[in-house]
């Protein structure tokens, strides 16, 4: 008779290979937090930002481990590794890597560095990794909480600044509220299906058999889960927290929040709606369509009036989520996941790039108002050009990568019959061109505010390297934009389904 610990290990080792990346992140974060920081590296105490490099190394290692993880279902069918999991995990890790790179001291976005900052990023990332693979509503809930708690703290990280605290508080209160709604929705669904399962696949089968008198439970359950998730991706009308949280958070964290958690939440969205609620007679597309349209319209229209570049990007991110929900709506889950992933990838690169420029300027002591971009074309030619590329790409002007993201997404949506939504999306993206170009206007068409500002200022080599790299990524992405779809065609996003030909493929291929 095996001992208890041997038995535990035996059962654990059966599935543990699915979560090595998470284990690495958590162990490393814990070690960093306590023994390493206080005992082994006392000399780094004065310069905590030295932790950035180890953090980067850990994240890169996690990326490698993630790619090497085998596909499969584990932990009593609560966690699953397939194309969707891996694809979105890669996006999350990339987002975190970018965030750590943006937090560097030379950029001066943070006044103080503590080890907790990096630890929280690592723990948050592990939460996201779990979210991407969650195939059980309970896993979904727990992993969302793991991620969100880390972000709440990070938003309020600049504890000497009132607005950072305010942002953290607001985000925390509303976030806790929405988690409650999500949990309540989950329990309603659990009850409606007879209190047997929270596993998405089984839930899907059970939901089909629910008797008519329990319909209300299912309807409200689905709706509450939808609301909870929409809150996490900041879709209208559950977006209230986003502008304030984005504005108050340290800018690298804003960049992170706009990309990595969104990628993870969209993965959950795709998983829950395209596995759990797939082919339900309860039509959840209607509310989602309304939410998607409202996000596009409100996000883009509200962004016009913003004076702060961070708030502008916050509202634009709401609009981008509106576009991506089109992919969730797709009845063809495979193609939907593919289009959302491609869009998220392009958004990740261009949005991070835009934030990098903002962070650099902030570090130079310049404000974050759009007016402060005046004459940047003269003062920082390289920076202004990079920003131009990012903004045009965000606006979806061809041939930049952002256009390809939109193109695939909208093409799919038209094919799935959401023509009205696509018309709204395209018209509002024309509106978005207005506010993106407003920044371009300040950079290139307006003279610098001060006389001495007319000189071309030298740039820090690290910042120069970082921004050139991001800009190059967008341009490379542009060059390979047409091929992206083909490359991702081979990924089987939902492992369970028989590998079918991707939607866009020509017959006979």
């Amino acid at each position, binding site marked *: 008779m095996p001992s208890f610990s041997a038995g535990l290990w035996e059962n654990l080792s059966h599935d543990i290979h699915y979560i090595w990346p998470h284990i690495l992140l958590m162990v490393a974060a814990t070690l960093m937090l306590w023994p390493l920081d206080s005992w082994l590296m006392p000399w780094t105490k004065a310069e905590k930002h030295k932790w950035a490099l180890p953090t980067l190394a850990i994240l890169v290692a996690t990326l490698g481990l993630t790619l090497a993880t085998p596909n499969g279902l584990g932990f009593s069918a609560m966690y699953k590794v397939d194309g969707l999991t891996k694809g979105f995990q890669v996006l999350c890790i990339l987002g975190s890597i970018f965030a750590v790179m943006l937090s560097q001291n030379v950029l001066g976005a943070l006044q103080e560095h503590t080890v907790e900052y990096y630890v929280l990023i690592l723990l948050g990332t592990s939460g996201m990794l779990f979210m991407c693979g969650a195939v059980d509503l309970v896993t979904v809930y727990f992993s969302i909480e793991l991620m969100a708690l880390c972000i709440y703290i990070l938003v309020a990280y600049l504890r000497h600044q009132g607005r950072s605290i305010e942002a953290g508080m607001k985000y925390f209160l509303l976030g806790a509220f929405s988690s409650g709604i999500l949990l309540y929705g989950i329990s309603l669904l659990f009850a409606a299906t007879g209190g047997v399962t929270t596993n998405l696949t089984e839930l899907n089968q059970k939901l089909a058999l629910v008797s008519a008198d329990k319909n209300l439970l299912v309807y409200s359950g689905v709706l509450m889960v939808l609301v909870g998730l929409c809150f996490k991706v900041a879709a209208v009308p559950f977006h209230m927290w986003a502008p304030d949280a984005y504005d108050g958070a340290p800018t690298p964290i804003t960049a992170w929040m706009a990309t990595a958690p969104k990628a993870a939440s969209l993965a959950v969205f795709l998983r829950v709606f395209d596995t759990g609620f797939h082919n339900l007679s309860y039509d959840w597309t209607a509310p989602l369509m309304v939410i998607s349209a409202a996000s596009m319209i409100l996000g883009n229209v509200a962004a016009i009036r913003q004076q702060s570049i961070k708030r502008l990007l916050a509202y634009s991110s709401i609009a981008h989520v509106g576009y991506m929900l089109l992919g969730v709506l797709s009845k063809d889950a495979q193609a939907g996941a593919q289009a959302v992933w491609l869009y998220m990838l392009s958004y990740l690169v261009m949005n991070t790039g835009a934030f990098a420029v903002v962070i650099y300027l902030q570090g130079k002591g310049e404000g974050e108002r759009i007016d402060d971009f005046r004459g940047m074309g003269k003062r920082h030619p390289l920076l202004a050009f990079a920003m131009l590329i990012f903004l045009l790409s965000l606006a979806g*002007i061809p041939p930049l990568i952002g256009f390809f993201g939109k193109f695939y997404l*909208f093409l799919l949506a038209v*094919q799935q019959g959401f023509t009205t939504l696509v018309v709204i999306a*395209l018209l509002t993206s*024309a509106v978005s061109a207005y506010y993106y170009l407003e920044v371009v206007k300040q950079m*290139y*068409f307006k003279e610098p505010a001060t006389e001495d500002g007319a000189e071309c200022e030298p740039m820090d080599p690290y910042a120069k390297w970082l921004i050139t790299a991001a800009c190059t990524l967008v341009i490379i992405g542009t060059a390979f934009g*047409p091929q992206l779809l*083909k490359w991702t065609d081979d990924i089987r996003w939902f492992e369970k389904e028989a590998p079918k030909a991707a939607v*866009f493929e020509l017959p006979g291929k």
Partner: protein
Amino acid sequence: MSGSTQLMLLATFLPLLGGLGLLFVPNEKREVFQKASVAIMVASFLLSVPLWFQYDRGSDAVQFAYQCAWMPSLGVKFSVGMDGISLLLWLLTTFIGPIGALCSWGNIDERWKEYYVWLLVLQTAMLAVFIAQDMFLFYIVWEVMLVPMYFLIGIWGGPQKLYAAIKLFLYTLAGSVLMLVAIFAIYFLQHKTSGVYDFSLAGFQAMAPVIAQQTKTFQILLALAFFLAFAIKVPMFPFHTWLPDAHVQAPTAGSVILAGILLKMGTYGFVRFLLPIVPEGTKELMPWFLALALIGVIYGALVAMIQKDMKKLVAYSSVSHLGLCMLGIFALNPWGMKGALFQMLNHGISTPGLFLAVGIVYERRHTRQIADYGGLSKTMPIYATIFMLMTMSSIGLPLLNGFIGEATILMGTFQTWPWVAVAATSGIILGAAYMLWMYQRVMFGPISEVNTKMEDLNLREITYFAPLLITAVWIGLYPKPFMDIMDKPVAKLIQQVRPDFYRAESLAMKQAEAAKVGMHAMEAPEGEGHQAKPEGHEAKPEGHGAETGAATPGGGH
């Protein structure tokens, strides 16, 4: 890839490559930028000339075609080529390019590097629009074109440049995104009927019969989506409001390119996309389109009449002239179509000439108000002569290019919509009035103290006017080569839009012959006449067949 195709691609992409090369030249070397940009444009023009001779006028196929796979899984190809219609406008673009670069030497006093680079990028994008044979490629270059123009106006424009630049950008963008939805819709319809995913232009045009079988609402929506995108670009009334702003604020080269080429893309879009792809939907909406075009002709002319600013006057004259082009296109017969295309060419020569002429005095006095001038012909005789010729060309004086185009358009329009043609004539009369009135106020009368100091044209300025003048006179005297080159493509287009048109026409000719020989009018062609009738409201059986204009379609009145 044949030699001609290589030439075509080289001439198209040379400006872009040159522009990228110029990025490595240090900022302060103004002369290098000026000379290099002109040299690149001229080189591109010279490369494009041989295609004029190599083009096979006897064929209506897309020539110099080249295609390679680009996004195979979506059916997107990098597909280029041109027919006579594209060739003419493409050559016009390479022709206007050097003039635009040359006329910028004097008035671009800051940020030369960016200016010439944007100008060259714009040139490639415009050239690519005319040779694109794939809807996806077309959409991309169509949108890309906006960015350089936005910068040209936004940085180097007049006092209201910011407003004008963003207005131009948003108007055009809003129109073209709707077109994208229409493209998607046709793309999936095509897949539903034929099972292939294909973005090629030929494939889209072949969809016309299938689209014609869809519901009326679907067709009308498609037609509207395309119409809006192109009508904004043309611009047709009431989508024209961006044009005066953009023109007035743009630097001279910007106006030249805007008037010379960009506006033609709208009309080109009608001819290349809207008519062949959604012919039935277009016919359905024809009364509305006609009304808008006609209002444009007359309203543009009336508004031009009261302008105090010369550039604005010329801008509104463009609205009027392009309205006339639209009428010619909507006549849906070879004469109207050819006249419209021909008039696009003429407008692309005379209006840039006028903008250049306005630019000349603006460079010297920094004002465009007509009231500030007067009596210029005394101190600037060469200028006055050139301005005169350009004015005459614009108002359509015989022996200059404008006349041929206007006459052909009216001829074509009259056959289909007689009353519209009659009304449109007033636009031409008004055109003569406002142009001559402006000329009179600027050139004649007493001259003020300041204006006596104005210098006449220098060699550089004469250099960029010369090609325009020569072409204007050449076309005016001997338009045949230009007409010939679009003969076949226009015939093909009319065949696509109105499949019964040529049948009805040949029937009419037979009847005419029969009448001439003295046979009984109805006998010989009777049998054929019945076959043609079911489709055609065209052939009028009640006539004695003697009238040559029996091809008059009755529909739509």
